[in-house]
């Protein structure tokens, strides 16, 4: 860390070799084009080197901090490419109340058809929602960690997660 802070190339190369793969993998899950993913990864490290002074080891690990930067850059990139708009039908989904238990039961059936359908539905989600699902379900990060990466409170993120699950459940039901 000291070497990175003083701008030494040894420290920077060590950081890249240690965390480059993690950051690249996270970005590549959202940005399928390898060239774009590589560029975003290098941008992430460049930004990290420039703002290394703002890193606080007490708040999060270096890996999580890098993922936070990567998350912002990826989200900006995806929004530039495909601006997301909420349709009226989608907003109507929230009108019916479904409990967490009901949702969990509906989204844990093991039904192949449902899993395939979910896979397709997730492609249509807005980038930030897709990223949240990836961080929480695929990378199996704690909600607090996800909240740090996404710059939100764990409570707000739990609400958001509930809404995404409910939306997926409704769309599954409709189909």
């Amino acid at each position, binding site marked *: 860390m000291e070497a990175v802070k003083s701008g030494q*190339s040894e420290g*920077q*190369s060590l950081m*890249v*070799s240690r965390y*480059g*793969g993690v950051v*690249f*993998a996270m970005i*590549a*899950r959202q940005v*399928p084009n*390898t060239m774009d*993913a*590589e*560029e975003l*990864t*290098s941008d992430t*490290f*460049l930004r990290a*080197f420039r703002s290394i002074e703002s890193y606080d080891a007490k708040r999060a690990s270096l890996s999580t901090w890098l993922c936070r930067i990567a998350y912002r850059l990826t989200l900006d990139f995806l929004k530039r490419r495909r601006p997301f708009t909420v349709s009226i039908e989608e907003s109507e989904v929230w009108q019916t109340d479904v409990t*967490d238990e009901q*949702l*969990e039961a509906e*989204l*844990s*059936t*093991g*039904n192949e058809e*449902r*899993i*395939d359908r*979910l*896979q397709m539905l*997730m*492609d249509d989600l807005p980038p930030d929602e897709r990223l949240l*699902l*990836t961080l929480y*379900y*695929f990378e199996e990060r704690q*909600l607090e960690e996800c909240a740090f990466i996404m710059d939100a409170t*764990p409570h707000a993120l*739990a609400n958001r*997660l509930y809404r995404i*699950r409910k939306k*997926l459940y409704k769309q599954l039901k409709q189909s």
Partner: protein
Amino acid sequence: MRTFEDTDIREALQRKFADTPQVPSDLNERLLQRIQKEEDTAPKHRILPIALRWIAAAAVLVAVLALFTWKSHTTKIQPQMAKQENAPKVIEKDHVDKSQTSHANFANDTREVEQLHTRSLETLQPKKKNRKAVRVEEPMITEAEPLPEEPETEQEYLPTEPDPFLLAAAKAQDIRARGELVYQEVVQIMNNH
């Protein structure tokens, strides 16, 4: 905070990311090369904007200072200018007020008529010039020296017959008309003589 199992979502994500591009083996080298390249070019790009920012800030500061000094200068001058502008107006206003008084007031104000009369006799200048002087330049009227043979005070001036100038002035509605009448009377008298 409780954890949601949602195994269907987990399974769907596993399948979705199964064909995600793997981390290239030479990723670190390429990343480092790119970062090095970016860092070499970045300062060159940044120097100019920083210099421009300083120049812009200095220009704004100079402009603000100039505006401030100009404003303070004008606020100092304005009261003096206002004084200068107001002075003649007061005289003119007084003059207008006088012109609007009744016939009795005109009769009482003999000194003014005398002065007007003496000035008319003294100068006998073209009509326009006289009118202008009477109407606007009040100080000139007051400064006009009375003729030596004319009485200066009210007690000394004791008219034995009706003063034609006073009658003419009494007929006039305002100072301009009065001046004109007086002038005409004077010219007539002079012609007769």
